[in-house]
């Protein structure tokens, strides 16, 4: 009964987590319409690859005497692979293009990234049945990480965002020739 409930809630949790990742993606790209198409293509392609990888990993899992427990752990591991990959992609994409994260969105994503990474390791160890009867030790690590992430979320959501550097942008040297050419082009439009 316990594992059935756990499995059901895990499925709901997975659904909510993917909704949050989708929402973060939308918020991140809301101010960058020029990149939206590229980002959608990349994240769709990556999603397909990650789901394929997670399916392969699940298919090669070792059978055990406790199918429901095993299924829960394998589901957790597969979902963690996809979530961790998607969140890592969001971070790398934003860093490559120097996109500006809004503070609450960044905090949520950071917390999710930490949780997803630790969950991936957690579920990988559990699905491999490496800790046997001492798997409760992993539970402590897992819950400690989750509580740290709750603190991170509270910090980014409750502490007001510091204003960005307000000094005027210092511009490099003058080049009248190129400036004139650019001005001509602007006038021709």
């Amino acid at each position, binding site marked *: 009964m316990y594992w059935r409930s756990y499995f059901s809630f895990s499925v709901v949790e997975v659904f909510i987590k993917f909704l949050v990742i989708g929402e973060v993606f939308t918020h991140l790209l809301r101010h960058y319409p020029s990149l939206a198409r590229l980002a959608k293509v990349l994240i769709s392609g990556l999603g397909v690859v990650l789901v394929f990888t997670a399916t392969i990993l699940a298919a090669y899992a070792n059978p055990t005497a406790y199918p429901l427990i095993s299924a829960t752990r394998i589901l957790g591991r597969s979902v963690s692979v996809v979530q961790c990959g998607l969140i890592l992609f969001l971070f790398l994409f934003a860093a490559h*293009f120097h996109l500006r994260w809004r503070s609450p969105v960044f905090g949520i994503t950071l917390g999710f990234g930490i949780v997803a990474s630790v969950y*991936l*390791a957690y579920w*990988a160890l559990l699905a491999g049945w490496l800790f046997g009867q001492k798997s409760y030790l992993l539970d402590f690590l897992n819950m400690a990480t989750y509580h740290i992430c709750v603190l991170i979320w509270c910090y980014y959501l409750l502490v007001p965002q510091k204003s960005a*550097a307000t000094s005027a942008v210092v511009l490099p040297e003058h080049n009248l020739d190129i400036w004139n050419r650019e001005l001509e082009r602007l006038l021709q439009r």
Partner: protein
Amino acid sequence: MNLAIILVVAAAVALGVILRLTITRSLQAKGNSNSAATIRPIDVEAFRNLIDPAEDQYLRGLLPPTQFREVRRARLLAMAAYVQAAGGNAAVLVRMGESVLARGDPRFAEAARQLVDDALLLRRNTSVALLRIYMALVWPNSPFAAGRVIDRYEQVSGSAMLLGRLQNPATPVRLSSRS
């Protein structure tokens, strides 16, 4: 067992990357004012000359195949250096545009938004162009065109100059240099 270890290592790497990017982001937010100094002017005419397909055709007809491949690889590496510089400048301009947008001054908002959009497209084009250059390094005989990078670069230059002119009429941004 092996799979679990591989996944644990992957998780550790992912966590490391996320934390590193977080630290980098906070450091950049603190030291934002100096970013314009990192712009590297590009000789657009030399770059245009380098990617001219007619030059490649001329060299192909002039040199024996082995020597042509060597020259072509050297030219591709030079192209990569130009494209990387353009991509780096685009990143700086994104930060500059964002910095202006964050100030919330409606006089500069439209120009800053245009600069950010153009710089992001340039960064996208340079990333694709770099991939194609590295592929062309493996197959030096394959055709390669980086014209879109140059066109976009000149467009970004125009946007940067417009924003620079609006902010400080005496000192427009210089993104190109002439020999």
